[in-house]
């Protein structure tokens, strides 16, 4: 069985987590700071339009912020992503992002490493929403890849 805390096996709690992150998203304030990288993610196929920023120093994700107009799944998944990756090394973050995308693809994944983000474990069953759950994660992945060679 999973090492995951039992509470994360409870669908009611996962549902509440999504709702909570949607209504009160964490790290939901863009900053004006040249040290931050920024990605504007405007989905071509839907209305989601968010900007994700990150401050990466010495191989560590010091901060992530985001804002924009987005659906429940986009907003909550980006909010959880920010909680999960702030403070992680780039190497750790990359593994988490990879495992998250495996989950969205409906493949085997390491659920312990994803913590609350396993709330999106069933999104793969609704193909039209996978992009919603990906948008913020794509942004951070792109920025990690951009900064990695320099770090």
């Amino acid at each position, binding site marked *: 069985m999973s090492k995951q805390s039992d509470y994360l096996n409870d669908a009611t709690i996962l*549902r509440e987590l999504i709702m909570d992150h949607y209504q009160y998203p964490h790290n939901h304030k863009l900053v004006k700071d040249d040290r931050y990288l920024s990605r504007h993610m405007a989905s071509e196929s839907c209305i989601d339009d968010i900007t994700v920023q990150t401050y990466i120093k010495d191989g560590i994700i010091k901060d992530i912020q985001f804002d924009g107009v987005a*659906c429940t799944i986009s907003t909550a998944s980006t909010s959880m992503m920010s909680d999960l990756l702030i403070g992680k090394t780039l190497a750790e973050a990359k593994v988490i992002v990879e495992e998250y995308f495996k989950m969205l693809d409906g493949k085997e994944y390491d659920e312990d490493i994803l913590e609350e983000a396993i*709330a*999106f474990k*069933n999104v793969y069953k*609704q193909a039209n929403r996978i992009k919603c759950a990906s948008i913020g994660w794509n942004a951070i992945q792109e920025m990690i890849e951009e900064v990695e060679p320099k770090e």
Partner: protein
Amino acid sequence: MIDVKKIRQDFPMIINHPDLIYFDNGATTYKPKRVIDAILSFYENYTSNVERGDYPTAILADKAYHQTREKVAKLINSEAKEIAFLANDTAALNQIYYGIGKKYLKEGDVILTTKAEHASNLLPLYRLKDEKGVEIKYIDVDIEGNINLDSYKELMNESVKLVAIAMVTNVLGSIQPLKEIIQIAHKFNALVSIDAAQAIGHQPIDVKELDIDFMAFSSHKMCGPDGVGVLYGKYNLLESIEPILLGGGMNARYYSDGSIKLKKAPEVFEAGTPNIEGVIGLGEACEYLMDIGLENIHEYEKELRAYCLNKMKEIDSVIIYNETNDSGVITFNIKDIFAQDAAGYLAFHNIAVRSGNHCAKILHEVINSDQTIRASFYFYNTFEEIDKFIEVVKNITKESVIDIFF
């Protein structure tokens, strides 16, 4: 009268998906079996290129291809030679605006359009603005997308050379008062180009009576196959504009000194091997729709709309953006719920609608919402489907749109 039970038997998609409620007809329509069969028959019985062969199957293909011009002409009351087949509505609109721009527009001329247009009916105009220095002015539309005729009259003067609008707007289904708009435009010698993508196949269109100069629409939104757009132009005007594409099938002669003698309209707009199967399928779709009757279709859609609208108005959480028009489109939101979340919930319950900005990305300046849900009906939809839709809409809440993931 529409015998919807019988009509539903004509559509393999309905037979194969009896539980899917398809309210996304503004995006594309289902194809009746006879359209699919016409396409199959071309490949199984008389595959050939058109305009070229002397052998019997080529003559059959040629005949079927050209008969579609007559069928489309009958559908919109034009001459067959006023109909050209392009890749889609967008290609037809681009051809129209390229041709008009080159032939009729100069710097400082004015084009009138609206903010309720689809991207296809605006971006080619923006290019004319860039390349020719023409000015684009927006006729006021009300919050339901209907053109304000007073605003139109105010903007109209001798410098207006083109009025480019949709007959039925794609987000709100507003049916524009074309007759009056065109009469006024012609008084000032302005050309009128109509995007009929959302109108064709839903209501009778008579280009002669309306006195339309140019018009475009696509086959796939009227029960025909994808990949065919119709370009209509009054023949003297159609003849007067230059084709975008040059190549085979559209030239009569060319010489090594670079001189080209082009074919006449409409062939001159059909460079390269056309989408023959698609054109043949479109011909069959025209006949199918005329058999049912465009007036019947329009009346039935109005009934569906009124029935659905009344039920939606009883639901407190529903915001409707287009209460008053006569098209089969209802544009709405659920209070405080992101359109895609609501559309996702409907999809989970086997109801197909569209959410987003519907390719009309400046309409938000008019309706104060940059995202909506659009339910668009067609003559094969039923009152029972609407009942089911209403029950699902009632259950859309902040919580329920997340529940579908557990």
